[in-house]
């Protein structure tokens, strides 16, 4: 990773949702789900980063924090040097135009009573873009998402478009204010395989052309790999591994990432059917284990994992939160693939 300018900095962010009432409190049950539990990372300008993990790992909550759709319970998030946890007024308004969300379900993200033109005009009106300029902006963004024959679409309603076309409109809506930063939450999970590739290609192209900084939230490593050069893997509200996607796919380091990579089926007859290097059971976000939150499913867990939360260790270009790699830089022996 070349050292480029940081756009977004997340420092020790937590997002805890209160659960239960007085009864569960009296029973000694947890009073909060720790959706995000102390994560730190930096996004550099122009970088495309995947947030990867199972349902309940906190990836969507992290996305919401990045866009200030939620404020962290604890910790700080800065955007272009400004602390977004405290901004308000005009500064907040400016942030809202510069950071955008690409929704997951294109069939629900657009108002069915709005024409495509109205859907695309709305953000322009909100941002007080003069009327004279709007039509030109709309055509420009339609070109950008590869719907060049704009006249054919603008007066239609969402139900008249296919899923792939709708997702491009959803993308256009997020891009029309020319943001610096977008968060895309599983943007192709509702689409059929044959059209998915088209939307992903548009995403890649747009990112490169606009120099966007992008976060792509997904549970699908193969998709993340296609659009992101860097990936952050989350497990139960914490980061377990963060580094170049190709390294992570080729040689996953954290025991959880190893299981995740091994579990992805590939479209070939020849593939490994070996048992996954992971314990059965599902992570319970209400009641994570002490120390390392992965230890109850980890085949490599040892005594220390129960008492001490692993901090980040640097291995090559990666950060790994696992005691197997403690002081990995000085003890390269710890790096080997555990048997």
């Amino acid at each position: 990773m070349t050292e480029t300018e940081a756009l977004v900095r997340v420092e020790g962010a937590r997002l805890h949702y209160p659960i239960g009432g007085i009864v569960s409190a009296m029973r000694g049950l947890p009073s909060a789900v720790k959706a995000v539990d102390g994560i730190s990372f930096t996004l550099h300008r122009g970088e495309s980063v995947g947030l990867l993990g199972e349902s309940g790992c906190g990836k969507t909550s992290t996305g919401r924090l990045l866009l200030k759709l939620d404020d962290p319970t604890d910790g700080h998030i800065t955007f272009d040097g400004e602390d977004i946890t405290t901004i308000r007024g005009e500064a907040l308004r400016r942030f809202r135009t510069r950071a955008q969300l690409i929704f997951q379900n294109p069939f629900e993200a657009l108002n069915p009573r709005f024409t495509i033109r109205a859907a695309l005009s709305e953000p322009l009106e909100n941002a007080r873009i003069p009327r004279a300029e709007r039509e030109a902006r709309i055509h420009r963004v339609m070109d950008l998402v590869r719907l060049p024959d704009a006249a054919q679409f603008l007066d239609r309603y969402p139900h008249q478009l296919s899923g792939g076309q709708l997702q491009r409109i959803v993308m256009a809506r997020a891009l029309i204010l020319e943001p610096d930063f977008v968060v895309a939450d599983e943007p192709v999970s509702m689409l059929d395989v044959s059209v998915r590739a088209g939307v992903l290609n548009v995403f890649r192209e747009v990112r490169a052309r606009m120099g966007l900084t992008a976060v792509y939230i997904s549970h699908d490593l193969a998709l993340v790999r296609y659009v992101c050069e860097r990936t952050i893997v989350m497990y139960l509200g914490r980061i377990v591994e963060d580094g170049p996607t190709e390294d992570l796919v080729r040689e996953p380091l954290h025991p959880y990432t190893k299981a995740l990579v091994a579990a992805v089926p590939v479209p070939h007859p020849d593939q490994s059917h070996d048992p996954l290097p992971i314990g059965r059971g599902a992570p319970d976000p209400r009641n994570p284990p002490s120390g390392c939150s992965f230890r109850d499913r980890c085949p490599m867990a040892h005594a220390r994992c129960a008492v001490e939360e692993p901090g980040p260790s640097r291995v090559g270009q990666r950060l790994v939160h696992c005691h197997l790699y403690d002081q990995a830089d000085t003890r390269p022996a710890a790096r080997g693939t555990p048997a």
Partner: protein
Amino acid sequence: MEPLLSIRDLSIAYRVGTSEMLAVENASFDVPRGAIVGLVGESGCGKTTLARSLTRILADNARIAGGQAVFDGQDIMALSERRMNALRWREIAFIPQSAMNSLDPVYTVGSQLAEVLCRRGNLSRRAARRRSEELFEWVGIEAGRLGDYPHQFSGGMRQRVAIALALALDPKLIIADEPVTALDVIVQRQILDQLRELQTRLGISVILVTHDISVVAYVCDRVVVMYAGHVAEAGPMAATLTRPAHPYTMGLRNAFPDLASAGGQLTPIEGAPPNLLHPPPGCRFAARCPFAQPACTDTVPAPVTLDDDHVVACHRWAEADTLRTRAERSETWMART
């Protein structure tokens, strides 16, 4: 050996307003004994309709418009409702899409299993209890959890419960509609492994409906590719995925991200499937096919059997090898928009 299920020229129509729409048209394929058959295609291709027709649990506005499905010597489509009911669950079990959300939230999973075993299987309460424990052990859940309610299980565990329910009365065939679609990849893998293990142990057959060709590649013996109500291609899994003979299957391969490869460009199939209320006269895929010729838009291609039990419905089947080479280049698919 006689296949367990032999589907021939099966057509299923939905009444839409005053007209009818053929969601499945002249579908033919076999399900051998002791095999997992993947039924793969995009939304609206008819795969779920076809799967549901095999236990005749179709919507009110649907009807069998022709053809047969011979299961163990009898045509499912011609059975009386009473005979069909006797077949359901005991011979053919159906796991509906999002089965994990179809469990009744107000009963324990144990009592839902007991209901099936006692009512349909005529087991005594004691025998049902023993059988439930056995079923739970098969699908990898502790018997102690029979007293739990569905909400106390994770998504993957609920899917295991649904599999246990399907296996309850020792069926010969299980039809699973998108059994792993809503699950995380690790859980997905564990469920597929479990399904394969049980299928081998019990010698049953499985029809696995999915949109995911990598799930097919992981667990299926055979694959049936559907497109817009037609069977485009069917055959042994390895042969069909490595040497697809239908341009649609070739296109799907290019559109699918592959973690094992170097990570080249993905190529979409431009366009969308036809509206089945007004289907085109020829091949259903012709409008999106880079290899379409005049004949393709005029007449529906008849299925042709290539070697090794591999059937394809494409006018240009004889040129499949050449087309496959051309299909691997993404320019081939970009020429048409």
